[in-house]
Structures are given as structure tokens and as C-alpha cells.
């Protein structure tokens, strides 16, 4: 089975990722770190202090979606990559493929991390830590408080209310939005099974009928920022915080049914040739300065995993830092389906997208 996946990977992205890896390895030496990242890590303001302090260059390659990220790794040579940003729920997928190196817990500031986002059930395998949470937030309701009644946004029921017809955008990622639909249907995201899908499907179809678009990050952000829509299903601080300066009317709520807690982790590759530097990078990202810079990255904002992040008062206010305890208590975990349920969830999502 492993052979199947890795062979599929080799056959399919060899050209693109192979070229990227060859390019990176050609110029690689001990002073370079190759990182597979999400776009928030590409912000020079995030990388600069680490590069300057260590006299190194961080080469980043962005990807979206764990499947795409793991395909890049499979198409590369062992040792091409040093660290990877990954959905916390997917750390185990990388461990099962033998990609990740256990992290030395005693050399990481784990005590600083919000206990609710440690995600040990995903980041630890057989007692060893392979992933460490670096940033988190909520997939919930993002909205323009000047255009909609904030009181309505305290319940997911408002998303199917005809008075908001064509004023809603849905974030185009099936796991968190299906999680929200599960909350609306009165289910717990940690206990979802195939039997729950019909109820989730009904909620999704109602939301789709009320929506104007289903958009990825940029499209949904743009729609909310330009007033094309007033509500973003699946939105949260990651949409509204970064735009707060230009548009202070944008806000988010954690409705009474709850919100979905998302989190991203950092992992180190077992085949890395720069493990010392990779560990330093992880330590930097988890440091107060690294956390503050990552939390306010120009690509998207999010809550720093560390409670000691060196944020300004204004940044803390924008991120609603002091309300996190209450938010975390009401948030439910990101759905973490097995492969079979994952496929079925995606099919429900496809049906929703095709519904007219």
C-alpha cells in the first residue's frame, strides 16, 4: 500500500517538485533550511530574525492541503526538506509514512502552549512527539457587524435564515465546514460517523441555498472585505483580524453551538540533513518573538499557540487574546475522519457544491 502511494507520487509530480527539490538541493549547504510551509511562513518578517540570528537562508515552498504537501515530499529525494507545516490532525499521516523525526520535548517551550491546543492525540505517537502546535484559531462565523445583527451571529441557525439569502459566502474546505454543519445538526465533531452524514448534508444544502459563493481563502476574504457578502461560514480571526485595520466592522463570533478549533503544527523530517538547524527553527517559531510574527503574518493572522507571544496590546485585542479561555471551552475539535469517512465527507461536499 505504501508502495502504491509513493509510486503514485513519483509518477505524478516528479517534474514540478523534482525540479524544485533539485533547485533547492543544488544550492543547499549547512547554511540553508528547506521548509515546506503554508503561506503565513513565507512572510519575510517571519523569517528574517531567524535568518539574521543564525546567518542562514530559509528556502520555503508553499503548499495547500496535506495531500498536496505529502505528494511533494514523496516526489523529492530524502533530505531535500527539513521542516514541514501540517494540519495538526494530519501529523500522524506523516508519522505513519515514516517521514517525521521525534522532537526533543525537553528542548521545546511546551509549557507556554495553551493546554487546549497541545493536540497530543495527533502530535504524539507511541509516546513520542512528532508535531508541535504553532498557531490555531476557529472556523466559525465571520461577519460585518455593520451589515448584520451581531445577535443573530450567536447561532448557526442564522446561516439558513432567508433574511441573509445571497449575503453569505462559504469557506471552501470541507472538513471545518462539515464540522460546523455537524454542530448545527447537534452532533459532536469528535464522534462523527457515516450515519451522521445525511443530517450534515441537509444542513450544508440549506447553507448553500442561502449562499452566494463557496470560495477559497483569497476569494472568501475578498468577498467579505469588499461587501460582496456580509457573512463568511467557516471564517474567524484568520479572516477578520488581518483586515481589522482597514475594516474594523469585520468581526467573528463563536455561536452557542460552538466553533471548530483549527490548528497547525510544525514537524521535522527524519531524513533532514540539518536537524540541528531544523530544531532551532522550530524553537524560534515557538519563541515569543517568532510566535508574535507568525500570528500577525501578512498572509493570515491566527492565535499564537504560545501564551507568551510578544504581541502588542492592539494585536492582542484584535486577536481577542483575553477571550481565548472562553472560546477554547466552547470550541470543538477539527473533524479527524479515517480515510473511508474522509472520502464520504468529501463526496457530501461535492454534492453540496453541485447543488443548484
Amino acid at each position, binding site marked *: 500500500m505504501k508502495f*502504491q502511494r509513493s509510486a*503514485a507520487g513519483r509518477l*505524478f509530480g516528479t517534474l514540478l517538485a523534482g525540479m524544485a527539490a533539485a533547485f533547492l538541493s543544488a544550492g543547499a549547504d549547512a547554511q540553508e533550511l528547506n521548509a515546506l510551509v503554508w503561506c503565513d511562513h513565507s512572510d519575510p518578517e517571519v523569517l528574517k530574525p531567524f535568518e539574521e540570528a543564525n546567518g542562514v537562508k530559509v528556502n520555503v515552498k508553499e503548499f495547500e492541503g496535506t495531500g498536496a504537501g505529502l505528494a511533494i515530499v514523496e516526489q523529492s529525494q530524502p533530505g531535500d526538506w527539513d521542516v514541514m507545516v501540517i494540519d495538526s490532525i494530519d501529523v500522524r499521516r506523516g508519522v505513519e509514512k515514516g517521514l517525521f523525526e521525534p522532537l526533543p520535548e525537553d528542548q521545546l517551550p511546551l509549557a507556554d502552549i495553551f493546554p487546549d491546543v497541545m493536540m497530543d492525540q495527533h502530535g504524539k505517537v507511541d509516546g513520542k512527539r512528532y508535531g508541535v502546535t504553532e498557531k490555531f484559531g476557529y472556523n466559525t462565523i465571520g461577519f460585518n457587524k455593520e451589515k448584520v445583527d451581531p445577535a443573530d451571529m450567536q447561532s448557526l441557525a442564522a446561516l439558513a435564515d432567508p433574511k441573509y439569502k445571497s449575503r453569505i459566502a462559504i469557506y471552501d474546505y470541507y*472538513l471545518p465546514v462539515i464540522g460546523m454543519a455537524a454542530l448545527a445538526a447537534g452532533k459532536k465533531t469528535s464522534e462523527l460517523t457515516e450515519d451522521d452524514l445525511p443530517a450534515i448534508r441537509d444542513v450544508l444544502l440549506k447553507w448553500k441555498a442561502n449562499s452566494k459563493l463557496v470560495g477559497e481563502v483569497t476569494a472568501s476574504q475578498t468577498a467579505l472585505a469588499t461587501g460582496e457578502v456580509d457573512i463568511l461560514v467557516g471564517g474567524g480571526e484568520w479572516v477578520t483580524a488581518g483586515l481589522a485595520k482597514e475594516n474594523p466592522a469585520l468581526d467573528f463570533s463563536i455561536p452557542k453551538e460552538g466553533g471548530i478549533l483549527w490548528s497547525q503544527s510544525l514537524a521535522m523530517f527524519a531524513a533532514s540533513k540539518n536537524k540541528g538547524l531544523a530544531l532551532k527553527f522550530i524553537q524560534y517559531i515557538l519563541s515569543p518573538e517568532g510566535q508574535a510574527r507568525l500570528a500577525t503574518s501578512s498572509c493570515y493572522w491566527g492565535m499564537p499557540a504560545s501564551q507568551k507571544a510578544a504581541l502588542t496590546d492592539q494585536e492582542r485585542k484584535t486577536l481577542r487574546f483575553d477571550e481565548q479561555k472562553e472560546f477554547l471551552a466552547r470550541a470543538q475539535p477539527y473533524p479527524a475522519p479515517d480515510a473511508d469517512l474522509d472520502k464520504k465527507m468529501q463526496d457530501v461536499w*461535492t454534492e453540496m457544491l453541485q447543488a443548484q
Partner: protein
Amino acid sequence: MKGGQRTGDLHSALRPWYFAGPATLWTVAFFVLPLAAMAVVSLWTLEGQSTDFSLANYRQFFANPSYYRAMINSLEVTAIVTVVSVLLAYPLAWILAEGVPERWQRLALILAILPFWTSYVVRSYSWLLVLSERGVVNNVLVASGLLNAPVQLANTRFATILGFVHFFVMLLTLTIYASLKQLPRTYRRAAADLGASGLQTFRHIILPLTMPGIMVGAFLTFVLAIGDYVTPQILGGNNELLMPQLIMLQIGRRGDFPLAAALSLILMLVVTVAYLAAARWLKLERA
């Protein structure tokens, strides 16, 4: 002597292969082998399911209405884009070839293909802003009294078609323009001498003779539009899925390359059928 002659004969016999060899190797290495690999992968299934070769991915396409609906959507959108683009490109090419003085034609052509010079993604996002509720189009329609309130133009099939047409009109204009320029003016004079009206000349002389240019451009439009991911993704607002979007959906999180390969091959089959139809038509025309 005889041996030398034999060597010379061998060289002569192999000469075509010397020239065709590099191109053949290139095609085999970068088209035939990857295609074969894709066909093999399409018979696999993602981990957690069967490890044997099977047609499960293909069955899934035909069994799931959301999947084959994507193909229907793709064909509908592509057909509309192709027809509308031809209808707009022909008059434009005609004006360029016949209405613009010879010395200005080069400049006019450059202006006509100017949209090609901007990024495809930037152009699509620009259309999104133009078509939005607060965009130029809605503002003009509301200000002129034609509409009482803005209408949804962005994030619709209409927006996808508009984005495609904007791009492909340029492509078709070039192919039709080339056909028109190759048409000797004497044909039209001869038709006029024989008493044909302008419309008759166009219908019986010009249109049939420029049809190969139209067909080539239309085929290119069809192929490029049906395989495009960017335009429907940005302008369509995911309010319906086309085939490239369905394929990408399989890869993003789950990395289901086998299913993505099967869907890609089905899409390629449709393109092949379109090619065969166009090739057959062009062959018939020449005959």
C-alpha cells in the same frame, strides 16, 4: 566497394530516423510514458481500500451524479464559450483584415492580443471586481436606471463564460485573421463579376474558405477551456463544479491521485473525441 555501398544504403534507410528520432524520443518520454503511467495509476485505489487493479475509480465517476454532472457542466460551458467566441471573433478578425489600413494592421493586431500579456490569474480577479455588486458594470446599470438594484454577476456561470470569452476571442481572432488574409481578393471580385451580392459572396465563398481557420481556433478554444481550472475557480464562485475543479478536489487534502488520474483520462477522452471530429471535418473539407 560492395560493403561501402551497403553501408551507404543503410545510412540512407536510417536517415529519416536520424531526423525523427529526437522528436520521437521526446514524445515517448514526455507524453506516451507519462500517459501510460497515468493510465496505470488510474487503476489503483487510494490506501485503505483495495490494493488490486480495478475500475473502481471509473465506476465512481459514472455512478456518482455529482461527478458526471461536472462533465456535463464542463461540456455546456465549453460549448457556449466556443460558439460565443467564434461569433465575436469573426467580425473582429474581419474588421482587422478588411477595415483597417494595411500599415495599421500590425498595431491593431498587437492591441487585439493585448489581454494575452497580462497574467491569467490577475485578469480573472480583475473580472471578479468588475462584475461584483459594487463593480463597474452594476454601478453603470444602476446609475443609468436600467436596474433598480445590483444583480449577481460575479461568482456565476455567466462570469466564468465571460472570463473565458474575453481570453479566447483573442485566440480565435488570430486564427480567423490568418485565414482571411490568405484569401485572394480576386475571389470576391470574381463573385461580384458573376452578380453575387455581398451576402452571397460571404456565404458561398468567404465563409467556407475561412472555415478551416474557424475550426482550428474553435478546437483550440474547446481544448483549452475544458481543461482550465483558474477561470471557473475564481469567477464561478464554486457554485458548480467543472471537471478540472473536481480533479483538483481529489488531490488537495486526500491526495487521491488514482481517482484524479481516472477523471483526467475521462476528460482526455472527451478532448480526443473532439479532436477526431474536428480532424475528420477538416479532412472532409479538403477532400
